[in-house]
């Protein structure tokens, strides 16, 4: 976190969550101010003064700025850049003359220019399968990238006009793999609702616990092409892969890879289980192979103390891409008498089961030590 030491447009202290390296900086934060202050009127460019940044300057980046309208923040995108090690500049986009309350969201990546002697390299972008708890619209144009320090998520909603969306709360998650769980930010979401003033409505959602939560999303203006609400943000990760600290009673079990003894074709790989909600609900995300035996035991020393013994059934799709089938796997956690093990049981008629489970089940035979 970094805090501003001042600014030239009359805002208060501004706090950014930051990631800084030799080549890039990611800043996350938002702040409000009034366009009626003398300081704002005098400023040609909005400047925020910060403690020493890693970069002495940056190329142009993008942020969101808005003025408070009768129903929502109405805004657009603006340019921002690092002018020197202590100054973040934001384009002064003064197009809402009768709306004095202003807000800026910075969820931006800042980088350099001027490199000469290195080759251009590329990252790998993912196209995630985004799932919604409520069908507010069709999710399209999905872009997701994450490294250990920050992530990028961008997507659009098309035809955001169904079922009185104002009343809905939508939770957007990644069905392929979880979004990083160490991101917590109140983020802007660009709708396409307009009021004949510059820009369109920007509402706030929250990215937390691997999901984007949106509420009060207004209807878009039209079905027509071109009216496409969107989300675009560079988000700083807090670091570490432990459980979120504010989830009381959560138990998490992580296993990277394990083979059952010397038995070939019987292994678990990437197990990630949560026992939540009074430890009755088990959420599991795991890849396993039960091709040699119907049952397999795995000793997992990392099972936290106090974890109850329990059983649960999880749905799993067949990991072989050619087979569009699914099955049920029984997960049995044993912590009785000091044991720490997981048993997976193939409860299908098919003898071979190489599966990927992403499911939440109710724990049966819950027994505390």
């Amino acid at each position, binding site marked *: 976190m970094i805090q501003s030491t001042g600014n030239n447009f009359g805002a208060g202290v501004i706090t950014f969550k930051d990631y800084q390296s030799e*080549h*890039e900086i990611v800043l996350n934060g938002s702040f409000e101010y009034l366009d009626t202050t003398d300081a704002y009127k005098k400023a040609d460019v909005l400047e925020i003064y910060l403690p020493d940044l890693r970069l002495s300057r*940056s*190329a*142009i*980046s*993008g942020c*969101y700025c808005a003025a408070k309208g009768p129903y929502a923040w109405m*805004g*657009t*995108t603006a*340019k921002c850049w690092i002018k020197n090690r202590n100054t973040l500049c934001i384009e002064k*986009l003064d*197009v809402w003359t009768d709306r004095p309350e202003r807000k800026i969201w910075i969820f*931006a*990546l*800042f*980088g*350099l*220019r*001027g*490199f*000469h*002697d*290195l*080759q*251009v*390299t*590329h*990252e*790998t*972008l993912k*196209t995630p399968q985004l799932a919604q708890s409520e069908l507010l619209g069709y999710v*399209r*144009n999905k*872009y997701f*990238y994450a490294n250990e320090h920050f992530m*990028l998520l*961008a997507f*659009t909603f098309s035809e955001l006009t169904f079922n009185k969306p104002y009343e809905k709360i939508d939770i957007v998650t990644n069905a392929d793999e979880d979004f990083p769980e160490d991101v917590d930010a109140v983020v802007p979401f*660009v709708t*396409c609702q*307009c009021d004949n003033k*510059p*820009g*369109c409505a*920007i509402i706030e959602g929250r990215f937390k616990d691997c999901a984007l939560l949106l509420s009060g999303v207004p209807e878009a*203006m039209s079905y027509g*092409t*071109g*009216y*496409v*609400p*969107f*989300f*675009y943000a560079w988000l700083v990760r807090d670091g570490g892969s432990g459980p979120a600290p504010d989830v009381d009673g959560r138990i998490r079990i992580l296993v990277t890879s394990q083979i059952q003894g010397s038995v070939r074709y019987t292994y678990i790989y990437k197990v990630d289980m949560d026992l939540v909600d009074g430890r009755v609900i088990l959420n599991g995300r795991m890849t396993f192979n039960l091709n040699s035996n119907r049952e397999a035991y795995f000793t997992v020393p990392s099972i936290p103390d106090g974890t109850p013994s329990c059983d649960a059934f999880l749905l799993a799709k067949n990991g072989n891409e050619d087979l569009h089938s699914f099955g049920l796997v029984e997960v049995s956690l044993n912590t009785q008498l000091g044991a720490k093990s997981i048993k997976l049981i193939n409860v299908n008629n098919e003898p071979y089961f190489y599966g990927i489970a992403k499911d939440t089940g109710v724990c049966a035979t819950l027994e505390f030590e």
Partner: protein
Amino acid sequence: MIALPSIAFEGFSGSAKGVTARRVGGRNILSVRSYPTGYVTVAQVVRRSALSKISKAYKNLTDDQMKAWEQLAEHTAGASVFGQKAKLSAHNLFVRLNTNRAYCGESILLEAAPASIVAIPAVDFTDFCISENCVMFIGVPDPEGELKLVAKMSDGQSSGVSNAWGKTVIISPDKVPDWGEIDLTDAFKAVMGHSPINGQKYFVELYWIDPVTGFTGVPVQVSWICQDGSAHTGRAMAKRTTFKNSDIVDNENKFITDLDVEFAQGSTIVTADIKYDATKHNVQEALCDITKAAYDRAGKKFTSVMLGRSNGNGGYMPHFFNMYTYDWGSQYRFVCAKRGGMWGKIGEVFGTSLTFEFVN
């Protein structure tokens, strides 16, 4: 000039066929008319055409203005001759500063003398390269104020030549550092008509000029034999990987009016500041065809995502774009396809993002 104690020319003076004879101090002096042998640069043309005008303008100054120039001249030294700096006259100072300003495109004459002598720093840099592909200085700090950099270069000399500073000509009068870089590649080629040649020696002189007052800094001089590596690190130095307006193919697919994209090699960062006018395009995208050289420059086709917005007439609608390149037969295309927001046909694409492998 040739001085001949010839009796034949005793008492003779005048010019004939490029030879001028005159009698000075009891000696006959014969001089042959000289012709410029070097390259005439744009800056030299400006200087020569402005010189007469500026010189005459001094006579039209008011008495107070002349007095101010005289006072300033008293504190200004001319070129050093045998270790003793020559004094500049007020007239010479007026001409010198105003011709310097003319270099930088300042058309209005500076009639009032600057209040004081302006101290101009010397040009600083961390490395430079004179190769067949690249004449470039890097690590040049941004100067205080609005200084511009004047670059003088000689054409190629034999590698054994140790002094050819008199053969330097101005190849660029008004450079400003672009991310610490002074790129003289195109300027050299435009003035000399060719690129540097490996093995030949080049003499370079750099100094800052203040276009407001006309004062210049102390020139920094370097000489270097043209070769692939840079002077300090020895590594090959190439021009930055960018897409600029000069990379746009002027055809019916030109919907980008200002193209400025740069790849920060090694860090996967890409930055963009693009203006588009897609009024005559039926698709919600800004695109243009680029040259194969530009397409190849970025290594291979890539994809990225950027923010943007429509202009005022389009209601400042926020956009997000998918920015990518692809080849279409013999055409190489740069596209900013609008993905999010309400499409405005005229607008901007800007921001910093990462370059990603192109995925169909």
